[in-house]
């Protein structure tokens, strides 16, 4: 009961701030929409390139990337909030009032998920309105959104771990840059088979490549490597959860 009190309290406050403060809400909505419109619209002729074999068209191909990207960055943006709270001193209130401090991290995490749900809903509505073809059934789609949700949690745990270690908003680039690199070193614009040289070699070992491939497969109703993708995503979530909780201990030790 006490743990849930902390979790729900932290999540409520984080969401309230995001929803009632346009400067916090709009970027997390506008960036994915901008990317989706820019990539799916501006690069739509890529689907005519020989070797582009995704059956649901370029809009669906890009939708999966933008969905996963919004999930990852939604988590990272929540990590910014954690850093802001530590820098501004509000985290002390949470640390002082919470019998179970692990609940603070879970509360921020829950807020990251709910915040991303708003973005994902808007993105999905716009993608469907712009004619995105969906081949997968309900189970496939639940799989796609679950995979994105795990990536959202990974992004949050990663950035929260940094935020609680450094306790300053100046750590923002450190939270953002590795996620950005990981996302864009995956097959973003064309399938893996069409990537060449070093980019292909890097993408082959990038866990996001597997998540993207499986996600696109789920949307098309023809998913491959489902176990591997979910396994990798869950393993990353587990590793980053330990990273975040150790970050919390580091913040506790620093006072």
């Amino acid at each position: 009961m006490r743990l849930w009190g902390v979790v729900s309290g932290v999540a409520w406050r984080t969401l309230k701030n995001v929803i009632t403060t346009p400067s916090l809400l709009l970027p997390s909505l506008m960036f994915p929409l901008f990317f989706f419109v820019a990539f799916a619209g501006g690069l739509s002729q890529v689907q005519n390139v020989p070797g582009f074999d995704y059956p649901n068209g370029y809009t669906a191909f890009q939708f999966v990337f933008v969905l996963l990207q919004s999930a990852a960055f939604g988590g990272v943006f929540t990590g910014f909030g954690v850093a802001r709270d530590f820098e501004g001193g509000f985290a002390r209130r949470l640390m002082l009032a919470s019998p179970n401090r692990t609940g603070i991290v879970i509360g921020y995490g829950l807020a990251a998920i709910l915040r991303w749900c708003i973005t994902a809903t808007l993105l999905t509505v716009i993608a469907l309105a712009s004619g995105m073809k969906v081949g997968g059934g309900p189970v496939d789609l639940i799989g796609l959104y679950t995979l994105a949700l795990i990536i959202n949690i990974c992004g949050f745990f990663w950035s929260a771990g940094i935020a609680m270690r450094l306790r300053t908003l100046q750590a923002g680039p450190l939270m953002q840059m590795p996620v950005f690199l990981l996302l864009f070193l995956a097959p973003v614009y064309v399938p893996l088979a069409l990537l060449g040289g070093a980019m292909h070699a890097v993408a082959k070992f990038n866990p996001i490549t597997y998540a993207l491939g499986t996600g696109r497969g789920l949307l098309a109703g023809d998913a491959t490597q489902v176990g591997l993708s979910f396994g990798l995503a869950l393993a990353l979530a587990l590793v980053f959860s330990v990273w975040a909780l150790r970050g919390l201990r580091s913040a506790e030790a620093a006072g």
Partner: protein
Amino acid sequence: MTRDNSIVVEKLVREFKKGPRAVDGIDLYVAPGEIYGFLGPNGAGKSTTVLMLTTLLPPTAGSARVGGYDVRTEGPKVRSVIGAALQEAALDPLLTGRDHLKLQTMLQAIPKAERKPRQEELLDRVGLTDAADRKVGGYSGGMKRRLDLALALVHRPTILFLDEPTTGLDPQSRTALWEEVARLAREDKVTVFLTTQYLEEADVLADRVGIIDNGKIVAEGTPTALKEEIGRPSIHVTPCREEDRQRIAELMKQYGEPLGSERELVVRLREGIGLVDVIRAMDADGVVVDDIELRAPTLDDVFLAKTGRTLEGAATGEDGASAR
């Protein structure tokens, strides 16, 4: 089972990397229901002690039990019995006062049915009902302090930590806060651990006072006992004519120990000597003075006697102490 709302500290130490010992092996005991004033200049170690006692900072060495629980190993239990209003009120400028109270009731797992009445009761108690729906970013310093106090009281703690609660407040807000703290101790039997750099605050509020300087407790006792310990009263004389200064100083020296002062001539009276003795002697000598005053010892005199500096001088950094 009776509740244990005492604070017991033994040889508590906190060292920071690349820094001095902020708290250097202090011992103290605060009895249940007592208001304990922790007095010292900036950088003396007051706030670091509070951070350790409220489980926000682990001690480097020593032990502390708050409400019967060990701050090192029973942090969650300590946090369940304490309330704290820290030096820089930890408030979110984007939330309203009511939002803060709602959040606090959630964090403290107050049953849902009790949350609203408790919020209203506390807003009323600290006089913030009218401002409850305004964002805290627009609150004055006094309003923030009052909200911080209300937040600390949400779960009816048995021990309350107040870290310099009136710093920066106007006299009216300061008095109101003093009244509320005194009421909490008197009526609700809350143990209050109060840090301050204001002598008057410690004198008015505290049942007992601990004076900390450079991380060590240099004196402890009731304000009266501390003043009595160092203390006989002193006589402060302002000569009418500058040429009489030396003559008056020589005369006053017969009645007590001279104390340094630029403007006035000051002596701490010897046992059994009163103001009347000094006045009679001056009259007999034909000395004329502008002003003569008998002053009871203050806590600043206690600080001076124990550290060789005045509290005001120490606070402005005359001792070169760094802020901790």
